[in-house]
């Protein structure tokens, strides 16, 4: 009798602990974390920006079902590709093909920023140089003496 009670107690304890253990083993994936990494294929925008599109709502429901099934982020992305094709992935490199485009998509904006900053710096340096030389800096010595002569002629 005592053994049966102990067995029942152990069984109850296992049942009580099981859901918590399951939750701990579940990947900590959230819808908010995924929304900006996948596209809404109909809207052509990241899912996070598609607030009211019916297709986006269905996509969120599908993703939430996968999250509830304890799927990891990568598994959910793979499931989305199976449903909507690889264009559902918003981040370059997520497709796993590591092609030149994945590098260029980061490199070109970085180069553009560097070039723009260089252009602004160059313009500022030139502008400050022109200010430092003052308004008469471009007048040659010959022109200067001619101006002085003219001024003396009209000197009252």
């Amino acid at each position, binding site marked *: 009798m005592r053994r049966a009670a102990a067995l029942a107690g152990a069984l109850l304890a296992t049942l009580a602990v099981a859901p918590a253990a399951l939750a701990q083993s579940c990947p900590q994936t959230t819808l908010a974390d995924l929304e900006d990494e996948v596209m809404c294929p109909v809207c052509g925008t990241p899912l996070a920006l598609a607030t009211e599109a019916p297709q986006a709502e*269905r996509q969120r429901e599908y993703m939430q079902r996968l999250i509830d099934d304890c799927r990891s982020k990568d598994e959910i992305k793979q499931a989305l590709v199976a449903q909507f094709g690889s264009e559902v992935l918003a981040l370059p490199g997520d497709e796993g093909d590591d092609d030149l485009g994945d590098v260029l998509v980061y490199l070109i904006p970085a180069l553009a920023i560097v070039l723009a900053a260089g252009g602004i710096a160059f313009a500022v340096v030139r502008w400050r140089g022109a200010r430092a030389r003052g308004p008469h800096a471009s007048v040659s010595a010959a022109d200067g003496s001619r101006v002085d002569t003219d001024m003396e002629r009209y000197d009252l």
Partner: protein
Amino acid sequence: MRRVLAPIPIAVLCVVLALVALLAYGLAQNEPDRTVEEALQRGERDAAPALELPKLDGGGTGSLADYRGKVVVLNFWASWCEPCREESPMLERWHGRMTKRGGTVLGVDILDVTADAQDFIEEFGLTYPMLKDKDGDALESFGVVAYPETFVIDPEGRIAAVRRGPVDEAFMNAEVAPLLEGA
């Protein structure tokens, strides 16, 4: 004049022109393809683009060419599309009529979760063949921009009519029934 030709105003002008060109390009890219309607207005029928897609139930692929010699009502739909719910029962009724007279409705489920699409098919008891266009490739070739859209394909594989939006009995009677009589 020298001030206008200075590097900074020229750079600003270049940036503005580049932005305007980008905007114009974007608008031109988003312009829907309406060559089908233009051909129909001239009284011509363009050949339907080739269409080969996986079947929605996963059993291999299907294509428009499989139905050459038949009148096909090609319907682009999705389970999340509200107007698709309105037209589906009518399309099922017409599929019943068409199969007796050498025709069929062919559904293409677009950008949809397969399980949701199958629930939709079960809900409305749809029996016509279904293909799945998971990434929307067929949308571009047919110039589909809204959902649902329906193309009536004649037995020679040419587009005889198009409806951008849900179809109704009047459209089916006007565009599909005469083709069935001639089939």
